[in-house]
């Protein structure tokens, strides 16, 4: 019995360690989204490769996030990431509005939506240290025409049931909670094959 308990501890430790590394080090948060008939395998999402061209030269897209002032505390890596994530999500949701209807794409896009809002929250938390003017700079940065188009697409996708609260499991982004509350119980209008 004692031996079995020890074996269980070792196996449990390995299981926990592997999952912690997978989530926090490798960043495969998509593996932890709820499973079900609506959700597929995020690694198999075709939309990811289809949108690579949108990420090639983001500097040419004048509608992506840009800083409204020279006096800011935004690190260039955060700025680049904000542009990249906006360009990608814009492609997934706005350029290809039906992509989210496919199970694998849905899993990948939901994971990406989580990352998108997490990045925004992270930048806002950093900006908080510098006061209201810096927070306003970051808010303006994330309010480009592409970000607004993404918000409109998210509103539409929750309104027509293409995105539901259960898709996010326990990781519903705070910015999306009001949308889900508003359109609770809406049925999916995805085109049937």
């Amino acid at each position, binding site marked *: 019995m004692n031996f079995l308990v020890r074996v269980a501890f070792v196996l449990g430790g390995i299981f926990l360690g592997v999952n912690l590394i997978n989530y926090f080090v490798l960043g495969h948060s998509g593996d932890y989204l709820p499973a079900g008939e609506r959700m597929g395998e995020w690694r198999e999402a075709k939309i990811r490769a289809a949108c690579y061209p949108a990420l090639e030269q983001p500097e040419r897209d004048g509608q992506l996030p840009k800083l409204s002032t020279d006096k800011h505390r*935004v690190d*260039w890596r955060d700025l680049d990431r904000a542009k990249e994530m906006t360009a990608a999500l814009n492609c997934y949701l706005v350029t290809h509005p039906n992509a989210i209807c496919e199970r694998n794409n849905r899993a990948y896009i939901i994971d990406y939506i989580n990352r998108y809002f997490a990045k925004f929250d992270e930048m806002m938390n950093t900006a908080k240290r510098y006061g209201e003017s810096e927070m306003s700079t970051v808010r303006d940065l994330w309010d480009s025409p592409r970000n607004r188009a993404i918000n409109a697409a998210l509103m539409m996708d929750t309104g027509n049931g293409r995105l539901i609260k259960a898709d996010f499991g326990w990781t519903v982004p705070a910015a999306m909670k009001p949308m889900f509350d508003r359109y609770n119980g809406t049925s999916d209008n995805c085109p049937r094959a």
Partner: protein
Amino acid sequence: MAGEIFRLIRTPVIAFIGGFLVVGGWIWAPKISNLVQGLFSGGPSVSMFADTNRIGRPETAPVVRSCIFKVMDLGPDAKMEPSAAYFVLKAGSMQAKVSAMLGKSDRWSESQTLNLANTWGELASCIYALDDRELCDPDNRAAAVEATTKFFAYAKQTGASAGKPAISASDARVIENVSDRLLLMLKNHRRYGTLVGADFGSFAPAEIMQVMRSEQATRDICKR
């Protein structure tokens, strides 16, 4: 139940850590010691033990925005965020650090060390030339700390290689002048209370720590 679980894992964990420390320490101690020295030979980015309320993020500091393009010539067409230019400077330092750790000591790496000493020195001088109260901002203070620490670390490296046919007398004089100027600035800022020893951490070059220890704060210009 929790107590039982703790008792169950305590012994193997202690045995494992103890065994690792004894055996690993015996085998790897010299290598680890060299690695730590090598890592800090170029000066730490900012002290890992510094008070986070005093030391912020140097790359986004307004003083870096004012000074970085004065000390780094990236060409007329280069359109770059100041924090990215600062990153380029740090990446160059990292490369020199790796070369030093690998024991590479040729003309190129020695001239690179000299260039880095000059660039960090110019950046530090530019930062200290701004208003003294600028260093009340944690990001600005972090930038001043990092630039100063890096300058003294690279200046020491150029001095260490002076025995070999590397650094000319005129280069040595330039480094010495910058060094004297920065030490004077450090003394002033120590007195103003804008810089304290803890800002530089435990691995700071000896020249800096000597100033921090010998001088006393006479007032705090950050208090309004």
